[in-house]
């Protein structure tokens, strides 16, 4: 109880410091033009996808055998696909799937990866050995194989299954990166100093080391979103993607590959939107890295 009166001003001081640190980060992020553009593009894509039923007058799954492969026109701005469905509508609905797969899978992967990396890198010893052997084991299973298993087990691929599977199978790189930073930083002077003044493990991890490994985590996460959206399309390529008729940019792109000569727009639009989303996300990650790294000096 006695410490309470002391603790309050400390906490207050810290939060003020934090606030200015965050507002500085926000300023730096704002200065990163590609990141801001990326954020706007991603926001527009997300909103349009969310509002797809309002934005589009078409049913995404309504096939029209008499209107196959119609080139872009006023009625169908992106044309129609191999089954006569409005491509623009399917792009919007596909965005829901692809964006959520990308973001959710990476959230799952980064959470697991950071946790494992922190524990392994900070505590070291047998915990590290055990966790890293587990990472090795996870790595040594070809992802594809587990995907086939999951796909069959869950009777077909849904968004949830793909998110779970991609997330659970792709956290290892993050964990190794985080662990590497921890191995390298935990014997540094500032950590020793923090330990000397009696800081607990939790405090050292969260306040002193973890912020220093944010940069690699953010880079890994942005690359991870890209990878997850692309992984979803590769799964489609191997016949293990989200089941039709639910559209995703990946399965739309894959289904278009056989018609690339005949109807290039069917392949162009899903490919373009994958590219657009991934580039935006990467730029946001880049901006975040610049913004969150206080040592970082902006030059020319």
């Amino acid at each position, binding site marked *: 109880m006695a410490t309470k009166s002391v603790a309050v001003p400390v906490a207050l001081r810290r939060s003020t410091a934090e606030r200015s640190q965050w507002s500085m980060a926000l300023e730096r992020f704002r200065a990163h033009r590609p990141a801001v553009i990326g954020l706007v593009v991603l926001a527009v894509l997300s909103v349009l996808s969310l509002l797809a039923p309002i934005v589009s007058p078409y049913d995404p*799954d309504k*096939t029209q055998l008499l209107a196959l492969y119609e080139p872009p026109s006023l009625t169908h701005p992106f044309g129609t696909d191999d089954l006569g469905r409005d491509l623009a509508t399917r792009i919007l609905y596909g965005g829901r799937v692809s964006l959520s797969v990308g973001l959710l899978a990476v959230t799952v992967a980064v959470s697991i990866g950071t946790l494992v990396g922190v524990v392994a890198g900070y505590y070291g010893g047998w915990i590290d050995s055990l966790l890293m052997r587990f990472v090795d084991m996870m790595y040594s299973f070809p992802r594809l194989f587990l995907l086939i298993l999951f796909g069959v087990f869950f*009777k*077909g691929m849904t968004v949830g299954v793909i998110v779970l599977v991609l997330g659970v199978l792709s956290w290892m790189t993050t964990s190794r990166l985080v662990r590497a930073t921890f191995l390298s930083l935990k014997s540094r002077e500032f950590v020793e100093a923090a330990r000397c003044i009696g800081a607990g493990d939790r405090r050292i991890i969260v306040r002193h080391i973890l912020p220093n490994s944010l940069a690699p985590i953010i880079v890994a996460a942005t690359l991870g979103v890209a990878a997850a959206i692309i992984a979803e399309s590769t799964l489609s390529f*191997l016949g293990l993607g989200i089941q039709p*008729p639910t559209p995703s940019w990946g399965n739309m792109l894959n*289904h278009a590959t056989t018609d690339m000569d*005949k109807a290039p727009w069917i392949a162009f639009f899903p490919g373009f939107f994958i590219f657009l989303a991934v580039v935006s996300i990467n730029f946001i990650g880049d901006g975040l890295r610049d913004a969150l790294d206080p040592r970082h000096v902006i030059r020319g």
Partner: protein
Amino acid sequence: MAVGLVIAGCGQPPPVTGTSPAPSASASAAASPTRGGTAIIAIWQEPSTLAAHYANQTVTDVVNFGVIEGLTSTTTDGEYVPNLAKSVPTVANGGAKLSADGKKLDVTWELKPGIKWSDGTPLTSADIKYTWEIWMKDPKTNSRTGFSEIESIDLPNELTAVVHYKSVYAPYPNNFFSLMPKALLEKEADISKTDYVRRPLGTGPFKVTEFKAGDSITLEKNTNYRGAPDKPYLDKIIFKSVPSSQVALAQLQAGEVSAMWNLTEAQTPDAEKMAGVALQVVPGPTVERIELNTAQNKENPDPNSVHPVLGDIAVRKALLYATPKQQVIDKLLFGKAKAGSSPVSQGWAAYKGTQEGYDPAKANTTLDQAGWVKGSDGIRSKGGVRASLTYATTTGDQLRERVQQVLLDEWKAVGIEVKIQNQPSAVLLSGSCASKDPRKLGTFDMVMYASTPAIDPHSTVASRYHSKQIPTAADCSGQNYTRFKNPDADKAIEEAGATLDLEKRKAAYNTAIKLLNDAYVIIWMYDRANIDARRTELQGWQPNVWQRFTWNVQDWYLKK
């Protein structure tokens, strides 16, 4: 009876629809064939083995037609003609004899004299006997059907073999479709561990000289071939492994290969437009179908249980009426298939009836009358049961997925909700309860796949549509996946199996298939064609319904 046995394989000549400049016999006869040259054929599946007794892939036949021969071969009309044998033994010519009680059969084969294996050793009747022995002895052989009916084989002389069947095995002329060399193999304990699986020894026009796994298989002219020195015209054939039919077609267009195996229907419009490329479209006996589960969708259901939705014949009818087969064929298969109507579309027993065509209004009326009422979301229900079904096929098959999505939409329009639940072919078509084949276990509502009957349709009809063939937990062997039960159909199938009178057999199969179709348990989507393509300088092709396009490879030549 005598005639019956001979005609067992032959019947009405099926229509041959060759699009593009179809190679004709007169054309190849008119232009005098040039000798020499190499033909490269793109294949987009790789034969894992070339040993005929192990092979289970179509693509193996494609390669082996140039290498391994049998006693007979089959014409496009389904008629047996002698190949290594002097003639096809029949009751009429005395080659086939029924025992006094009519329960056993003796077949006498006589080999053409002077035939040599490609290594120069002579072909003798001992090779016929050895072929039977190895088929029965080697535990890893593919189906032993036919060989298991043989009691013994006598070899009166070097060129004659008398095969004693313990039953009247009607497809006997095709039993020895691939002969195996005794001299080469008899000392081997396990053929699967020998070089034979990749470089089999045969009597055909070519011999395998190189097998580069995942890359190419090279066949070179067999100088000991009985047609030599005239035939084969080509010096070399290289089967080149490519990853997909798309790459195969691209390589054909670029002239990197001179022919390709097995185009998808969707590729035909592009291929038809390519300069210097000719297609060969041959109708095949393979039928793509959608089978509807009439029993409960759960593991090993009681065959007498009733599916809550598909148990109602009105729903099954409505599903058929709401299926635009012809539109699917025209738009998604580019007209390169025929609307299906039965499991037996080719040969002497071909079923001539049809299935009702596309009529969504009739589908709606049927469902209305049966008491299936549309809800607010447009999906029907009856007595609290929602008309919601699952629909499975093999994952990653683009054509099937397209067909599924179109049908999904059509069925939704008449108030039946269908969800796609595809599974890898290693599961869906595993044919094994242990491997969780949903058809065997009964854990499906609707399943779409293709199946091909043999030239003699009996095994197909009997194992798939007799009520005794419903797979159960106790006996998983049957293939009656829809759980179709009809005593009259059972009787007809049994009758067909008990007589050799062709007309009676044909009528009985027709009766059974009619009853099957009247139960609306299978939607016969389409009869698939075999589509192969070549560059026009490669000449001498002949279509054959029952064979692969390489069946007459000794007649192929390159036009200069």
